[in-house]
């Protein structure tokens, strides 16, 4: 396997009044060029933290990230991020949002008309050409996410980082966008790291699924290789025993090995209310 992106002994801790809080520990991951990797785990396990460290938005306190033999120290367009909440600039049109990225990355390397073509090309790739002059507030959530993907792709990144890109969308739109991402990735061959909560999404899209243990001091629990032929069709896969086997493995990791026991919010609210009552009585 050709070494492309490598995380070695990555850990991060945050200082708190009670001493450092270790959020992430000993994360080791080696990712080949053109691979699609999903990070899956319960909320709060540090999936986003791993992604942000790769993006350079957070700095690891232990270990480090190497991309193409260079250490990652700061954010940059070669590691483009598709944010969970699209993060389009609301005062710019769809076209201008992509243009901002293209102008920043390619000014001096492309002529004006080349840039124009490149912006149009990326909008066409996510099928958003028809809404090029609309503002983000005027298009649906799925469309915004498409534009966010177009903006990230337009930076021609070596690694595309997607932080729960479809989490806020309805099931139909999500399926549609998953197919788009598969298609685009097959065409461009980007390395993709995707955070998800959705087991089906992880199995459908990934070459490997990285399952994370619960925090604090979360780390990589298991890595599951998905050997399904591409292009993958969700309908055909629904009856595929191999697919269901993979699904089952992820589910058993999440719900048996890393089961997260959380007190029911109603019960805890009542308990604290009772405590307060007792305190008030004691005061009286």
């Amino acid at each position: 396997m050709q070494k492309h992106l490598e995380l070695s002994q990555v850990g991060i801790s945050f200082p708190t009044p009670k001493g450092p809080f270790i959020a992430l520990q000993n994360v080791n991951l080696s990712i080949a060029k053109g691979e699609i990797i999903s990070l899956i785990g319960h909320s709060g396990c540090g999936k986003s933290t791993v992604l942000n460290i790769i993006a350079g938005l957070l700095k690891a306190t232990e270990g480090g990230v190497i991309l193409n033999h260079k250490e990652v120290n700061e954010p940059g367009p070669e590691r483009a991020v598709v944010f969970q909440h699209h993060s389009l600039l609301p005062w710019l049109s769809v076209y201008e949002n992509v243009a901002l990225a293209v102008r920043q990355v390619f000014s001096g390397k492309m002529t004006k008309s080349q840039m124009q073509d490149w912006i149009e090309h990326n909008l066409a790739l996510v099928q958003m050409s028809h809404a090029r002059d609309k503002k983000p507030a005027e298009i649906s959530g799925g469309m915004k996410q498409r534009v966010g993907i177009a903006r990230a792709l337009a930076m021609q990144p070596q690694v595309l980082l997607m932080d729960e890109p479809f989490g806020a969308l309805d099931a139909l739109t999500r399926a549609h966008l998953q197919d788009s991402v598969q298609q685009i990735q097959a065409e461009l061959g980007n390395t993709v790291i995707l955070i998800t909560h959705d087991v089906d999404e992880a199995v459908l899209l990934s070459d490997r699924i990285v399952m994370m243990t619960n925090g604090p001091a979360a780390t990589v629990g298991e890595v599951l290789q998905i050997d399904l032929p591409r292009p993958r069709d969700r309908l055909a896969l629904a009856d595929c025993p191999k697919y269901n086997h993979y699904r089952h493995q992820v589910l058993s990791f999440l719900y048996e090995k890393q089961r997260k026991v959380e007190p029911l919010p109603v019960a805890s609210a009542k308990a604290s209310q009772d405590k307060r009552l007792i305190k008030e009585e004691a005061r009286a």
Partner: protein
Amino acid sequence: MIIQLKNSMPASAIASWQPKLRELLRQGSLTLAGLAIFVLCWAALAANLQTSLGQFPGPSAVAVQFNALVAEHQAEKNREQLFYQRQQERLEKNPEAVRRPYSGRPTFFSQIQTSLQTVLSGFLLASLFAIPAGVLIGLSPLCYSAANPLIQLLKPISPLAWLPLITIVVSASYPADGLLSRSYLVSALTVALCSLWPTLINTIVGVSQVPADLQNVSKVLRLNWFRHVRAIVLPSAVPMIFTGLRLSLGIAWMVLIAAEMLAQNPGLGKFVWDEFQNGSSDSLARICVAVAVIGLIGLLLDRLMLSLQKAVSWDKSVQLR
């Protein structure tokens, strides 16, 4: 075909117009009713109020004085025209004759003009300082910690407290025969000093509240400081900045009247003060005219800023009013 469809208004459009029209009529009649009640109460109270300057003016007395002020303005304008006509004739006869500008009394309407000029220059000066300063302070936690206590300290100071200081400083540093009169400078500077705070504070808040997501976009794109400010920070803060500007203009107009009274800048403030000192039987009604005009101009300035605010606000989900 399509054009035709657009031109002929479909029935649904007419149907959607009717409730709007009804709402407009309802709002208009309520506004008029409120105004009518106010005028009636005023008339009733004024009729029973005797002052040292005679009866307190009611609506009709004020209307009479308004017409008188318009007539005075016309008369003064005619006089000015005649003056220049005579001067022209003199100059034709004797090209060596001295050319003088007309130095008549300022009328009510020229005073309004002076007031507007003064308030706008003071407001402009305040904005030119407050917006860049607000951006710098808002972006740097260091600057913020240094500037915030000072801002909180200076913000509540009354224009009346600043005025003597500004008067002394201006008369010490600006020649009496300068291009701008000292009274104008004093008024404009007082307005600027008192009205810059809302713009400054709102700019600081707007700039420091750029969503983390958008800041991350800027980081991933590696925008440099200037591009970051221009492409991300300023547009994001525009709604807050304009809210501040609107508040500032309101304060500027209020402060102006007080400043003009004391600085003797020939505007509406001086008009009110002179009428008060004059103490004739018409004075109170003339002051009432000035009060109404001050209110009306304040309202118009606010509406002007509101439409500007609406035009530049990208967040159409917020209802501005």
